[in-house]
C-alpha cells in the first residue's frame, strides 16, 4: 500500500513544531552549558563555579623563599590571596607581582594582625629555587612575612595544586609559559572561594575587608 503523500500544509506545520522543539531543547542545553548564559569561556566558568561551590585545596608540600617547608593546610586560619607565577616570566608575572606589592600595602593592618596573607606559588619548581623566589620578591618590595613565594616540592604536588586552583599552564613559543593569570581568595578553612582579575585591586581589597568583618 503506497503511503499517502503529506499535504504541504501538514508538512510545514509539523516541521515548524519540530523546529521549535529543537530550538527549545537547544536553548536549554546551551543554558546548561554556559551556566545560565553567564560563562562562555572556561575562565569565566571556573569563577562562576567557585563562588557557589568552594573547592578545598589539598595539603600540598611547599617550600618558601627562605627555605622553610610547610604544607598548604598549615596556612589555614587566615584569608589567603594566592597567585601563580614563574620567576622567568617577562610579562604578566611582573604585573601580578606589582599587584601583590600594592595589596600588601593596602591590607597592611589585617596582615599585621595575622588575618590575611599573600602567597605566590611558582609552577616551575625546578628552576625557581628559594633563592630565585627571594629575588622575585625583592624586585617589588621588601616584604615581611605578609607575602611569601613558594614552590611545590613534588611534581605530584604541583599537579594537585594547579588542578585544584584550575590553572592551565601551556608552554609558549619563547621558552616560557602562558597561563590563566588571576588572584585567588582562599578562606580560613582552606577553601578556594573567589577568583579576581589582575589589576582589580580596589574590588579585592573591599572583598577581603568585607569577609574579615563578617
Amino acid at each position: 500500500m503506497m503511503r499517502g503523500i503529506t499535504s504541504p500544509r501538514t508538512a510545514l506545520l509539523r516541521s515548524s513544531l519540530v523546529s521549535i522543539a529543537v530550538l527549545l531543547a537547544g536553548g536549554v542545553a546551551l543554558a546548561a552549558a554556559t551556566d545560565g548564559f553567564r560563562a562562555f569561556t572556561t575562565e569565566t566558568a571556573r569563577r562562576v563555579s567557585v563562588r557557589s561551590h568552594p573547592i578545598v585545596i589539598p595539603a600540598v608540600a611547599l617550600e618558601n623563599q627562605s627555605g622553610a617547608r610547610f604544607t598548604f593546610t598549615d596556612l589555614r586560619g587566615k584569608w589567603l590571596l594566592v597567585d601563580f607565577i614563574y620567576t622567568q616570566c617577562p610579562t604578566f608575572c611582573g604585573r601580578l607581582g606589582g599587584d601583590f606589592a600594592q595589596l600588601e600595602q593596602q591590607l597592611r593592618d589585617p596582615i599585621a594582625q595575622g588575618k590575611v596573607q599573600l602567597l605566590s606559588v611558582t609552577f616551575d619548581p625546578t628552576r625557581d629555587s628559594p633563592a630565585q623566589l627571594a629575588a622575585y620578591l625583592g624586585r617589588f618590595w621588601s616584604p615581611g612575612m605578609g607575602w611569601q613565594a613558594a614552590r611545590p616540592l613534588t611534581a605530584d604536588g604541583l599537579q594537585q595544586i594547579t588542578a585544584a586552583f584550575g590553572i592551565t599552564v601551556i608552554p609558549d613559543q619563547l621558552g616560557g609559559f602562558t597561563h590563566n593569570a588571576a588572584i585567588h581568595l582562599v578562606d580560613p578553612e582552606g577553601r578556594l572561594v573567589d577568583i579576581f582579575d589582575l589589576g582589580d585591586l580596589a574590588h579585592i581589597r573591599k572583598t577581603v575587608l568585607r569577609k574579615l568583618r563578617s
Partner: protein
Amino acid sequence: MSAQMLVQIPLLVAAGWLLARAVPARVLASVDAWNDRGITGLVLVSVVAVFWMLPRSLDAATSHPLMVAAKYLSVPLLVGVPLAVSWPRTGFVVRGFFLVEFVATFFRLGWLYLISPNRLCNNYALNDQQRLGRYMLTLGVALLVWLVWKLVWGRFESFSSTDVRTAPSPQP
C-alpha cells in the same frame, strides 16, 4: 587552535555528510514529513554549531575525554548528517540566508579572535588565537568572493520555480 577549528571540525562535518549516504531511503522519506524544505535539519545544525563555537566547549574538547568523545560523535551525526539530508531540500532563499550567516560568522569570530586581549581558551596561547583570527577573516573573504561569483555567474540546481511546493520532491 586553528587546526582544531579549521581542519578537524570541517573534516568531522564532511565525515557526517558522507555518512548520510548510508541512511536508507525509507528513513529519508519519513524524515521529509517533518523536515519540510530542510528547515528543521538546518535549525538542528545551527544549534549544535553554536554549542561547538563556545570557547569553553573547544577548551573542554581538548582536555576532557568525555567532551572529546562528544565532539567526535555529535559533529558528524548532529551536524554532518542533518546538513547532508536537509541541504538538497532547501530552497534558494533559505540557502542564501544560511550561507550569508555562515560567512558572517567567519567575520565575527575572526575579528573577535584577532582583537581580543584576553585568551578565550585556557588551552591555547594568545598568538594561536590571533593567528586563527587572521585565517578566519581570510577564509570569510574567500567564501564571500565565491558566493558573489556564484550569484552573478553561477547556475543553481535548486528549484527554479517560484512556488517551491509544486516542484517535485526528490524520488526515493
